[in-house]
C-alpha cells in the first residue's frame, strides 16, 4: 500500500517530480498529531504523486524531522533567552542641554592622554563600559559599525572603561576591533557625569559640547543611529 518509501526534499524544487514533498506546516502537524497519541498523520497525495497513493510522514527521511525539531528548539531557546534578557527597561533622558564636563584621561595602552575638548565640532558618543559588563559587550559591535558609517560626517565615539585595572582592556579592544579611542575612567569622572552607578551608560554630545541625551542601560543600535544622525544634521 505504501510502496517504496519516498525520499522527498524540503522544497518541491528538489528531487525528481514523482516524489512527494512536505511543507514545514505539514511536518509540524504530524509531530503534533503524533505527540497527542493519534499515530502518524497520513497526508493526501500531492499533484506530483502517483494517483491514489497516500504516504506517511513517518516514512520521511529522519533528517527532515530533525531539522524541524532543531529549528523549534532554537526558536524556543531564542524566546527563552530574550525573555530572560529583557527584565529591565533601558532609560533614556533628553536632558536640558548642558556642557559636557571636560576630561583628560589616559589610554590603557599607555599612549597620549585624551581630552574631550579636542573633539569640539564633532558629535561625540561617550560610552561608559567595562570588559566584564555583558550588555556593554553587546553594544560595542554596533558602536564599531556606527563609527565606520558616520566618521566622515563628524561622529566620534569614545569609550571610557570603568574597569578597576587597565590590564584586560587592550586585549578586549583588539578582540572587539574597537575603532575608536578608549580611555580609563575613574570615580572622579563618574561623579562629574552625574554618577556612573551602573553600566553601560552613554551620553550623546553635540558639536557645541553640550550633552543632549543620556542612556542608562543597553540601548538598541537604531535608537543611537537616529539620535546621531539628528545631531550630525544640526549646524
Amino acid at each position, binding site marked *: 500500500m505504501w510502496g517504496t518509501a519516498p525520499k522527498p526534499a524540503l522544497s518541491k524544487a528538489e528531487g525528481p517530480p514523482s516524489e512527494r514533498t512536505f511543507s514545514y506546516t505539514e511536518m509540524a502537524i504530524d509531530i503534533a498529531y503524533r505527540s497527542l497519541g493519534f499515530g502518524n498523520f497520513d497526508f493526501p497525495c500531492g499533484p506530483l504523486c502517483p494517483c491514489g497513493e497516500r504516504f506517511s510522514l513517518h516514512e520521511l527521511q529522519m533528517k527532515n524531522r530533525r531539522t524541524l525539531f532543531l529549528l523549534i528548539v532554537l526558536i524556543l531557546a531564542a524566546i527563552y533567552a530574550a525573555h530572560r534578557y529583557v527584565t529591565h527597561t533601558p532609560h533614556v533622558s533628553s536632558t536640558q542641554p548642558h556642557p559636557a564636563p571636560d576630561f583628560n584621561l589616559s589610554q590603557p595602552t599607555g599612549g597620549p592622554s585624551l581630552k574631550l575638548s579636542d573633539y569640539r565640532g564633532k558629535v561625540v558618543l561617550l560610552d561608559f563600559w567595562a570588559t566584564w559588563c555583558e550588555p556593554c559587550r553587546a553594544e560595542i559591535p554596533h558602536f564599531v559599525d556606527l563609527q565606520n558609517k558616520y566618521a566622515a560626517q563628524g561622529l566620534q565615539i569614545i569609550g571610557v572603561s570603568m574597569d578597576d585595572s587597565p590590564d584586560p582592556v587592550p586585549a578586549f579592544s583588539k578582540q572587539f576591533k574597537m575603532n575608536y579611542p578608549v580611555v580609563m575612567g575613574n570615580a572622579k569622572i563618574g561623579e562629574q557625569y552625574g*554618577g556612573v552607578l551602573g553600566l553601560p551608560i552613554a551620553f550623546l554630545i553635540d558639536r557645541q559640547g553640550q550633552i543632549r541625551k543620556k542612556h542608562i542601560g543597553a540601548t538598541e543600535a537604531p535608537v543611537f543611529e537616529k539620535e546621531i544622525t539628528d545631531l550630525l544634521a544640526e549646524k
Partner: protein
Amino acid sequence: MNATRRFLILSLVSFAISAFAFQASQIATSHTITTDDLVKILQSPKADKPLLIHVGSHVLYTQAHIPNSEYIGPASDPSALQRLRTRVDSLPRNKFIVLYCGCCPWTHCPNMKPADDLLHSMGFTNAKSLYIPNNFGTDWVQKGYPVAKGE
C-alpha cells in the same frame, strides 16, 4: 558521532547558552532580599543589622555604596572570591549577611551568583543577595536610600 546525537547536543547547547548567560537570575528567590526590605531593616532601631558586603567593581563602589558596607571586590574574580571566603570563614553560620553589586542589570551580573554560591556552600543559612534589577544608581541611589562615598 551520528547525526541524531549531534543535533541533540546542539539543542542542549542552545538552551545552555541562553540559561548560563544570565547567572544572577539563577539565584534562588529564597536567597534574595529586596532593596525596600533591606532599607527597612537598616532604618529599624531594633532589627538585626546584616554584614553588608559589596562584591562588585571598585570604581562603582567608591562613587556610591551602602553605608557601613565592606568592599571585597568583583566576585567573578577568583582572588576576590578567596577574600570573601577568608572574611566570612570565622563567622557563625547563622550570621545575617547581605551581598550586593548593582554593576549592571540583575540578569547580567557576573558577581552575585559566585558570591551567593560560595556563602551557601560554606553553610551560611542567613546569607542574602540584594536584588538590584537595573543598577545601583537606579534602584538605590535615585530612590533616596542611604549612600556613602569613597573607600
